[in-house]
């Protein structure tokens, strides 16, 4: 494989990992809170990202990504825990019947007349942080390999491909009951928030990015345990009965 192909493939795969995190957050927030404010957040995030990339260019390598991860990760972690707890309570209350509810049968999370700033901020932060990481990967790989052009193509291609997959899954995700979706998104935000905030502190995770899967498994188990406990507390029986 030529040097150009190696740089192209490496930046594509590395950027795709970040893009998956970005699209996961956008998809979850949009399906739970509504798409108007979420897409506005995505648009604003991409605009800020474009301005930063154009203004700083190669100097992006000096971006203080650590403090940014700490701040955004902490905010997502604390916010994600709110949805985590609400999701556990709602799924415990609805039980297996709740899982069969159609999304349209449940009240929407956002019913106000104004603009949903929560959805906007969540989507905006996810796009800016992950987009900056993609830009950072592209610039670092491209400059170090002397192949900035292929690196940019790899990064942009990853964003386009992952965004297209996310758009294709959008209809599927909106079929999931909101109480369950809120729990799942809460767990995802808590997982990424935990990972990013500690990375921002300079903590070395065991298995590096693989720790995200470990955290996800831990929080899924936690949710399942507390749903069982909440149902026993409320109804005196387990979800299976």
């Amino acid at each position, binding site marked *: 494989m030529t040097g150009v192909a190696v740089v192209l493939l490496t930046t594509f795969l590395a950027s795709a990992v970040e893009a998956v995190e970005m699209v996961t957050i956008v998809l979850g927030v949009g399906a739970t809170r509504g798409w108007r404010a979420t897409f506005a957040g995505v648009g604003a995030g991409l605009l800020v990202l474009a301005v930063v990339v154009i203004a700083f260019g190669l100097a992006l390598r000096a971006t203080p990504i650590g403090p940014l991860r*700490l701040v955004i990760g*902490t*905010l997502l*972690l*604390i*916010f994600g*825990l*709110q949805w*985590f*707890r609400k999701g*556990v*309570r709602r799924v415990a209350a609805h039980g297996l019947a709740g899982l069969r509810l159609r999304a349209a049968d449940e009240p929407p999370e956002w019913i106000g007349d104004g603009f949903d*700033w*929560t959805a906007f*901020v969540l989507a905006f932060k996810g796009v800016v942080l992950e987009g900056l990481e993609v830009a950072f990967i592209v610039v670092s790989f491209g400059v170090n390999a002397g192949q900035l052009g292929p690196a940019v193509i790899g990064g942009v291609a990853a964003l386009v491909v992952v965004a297209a997959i996310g758009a294709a899954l959008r209809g599927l995700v909106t079929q999931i009951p909101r109480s369950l979706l809120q729990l799942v998104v809460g767990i995802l935000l*808590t997982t990424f928030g*935990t990972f990013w*905030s*500690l990375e921002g*502190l*300079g*903590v*070395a*995770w*065991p298995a590096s990015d693989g*720790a995200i899967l470990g*955290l996800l498994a*831990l*929080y899924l188990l*936690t949710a399942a345990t*507390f749903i069982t*406990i*909440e149902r026993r*507390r*409320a109804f005196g029986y387990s979800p299976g009965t």
Partner: protein
Amino acid sequence: MFLLSWLIGFGRFWYGFIIGDDWTVAAAILAGLIVTAILNSRGVAAWWLVPVIVVVMVGVSLRRASRA
């Protein structure tokens, strides 16, 4: 007057966004991050601390909510 009400609304949004309905969860997470930073600076592996706090605080907060 408009500016004041906008600032109050802005402040309420961020309080609701960050703190939410249980401030003890946010406080515990911040305390966990500070302790993790201190331990990390002394070379102690402390990646496990915040996940443990998350699990414990979810349980504590849910119990408090169901009692209320």
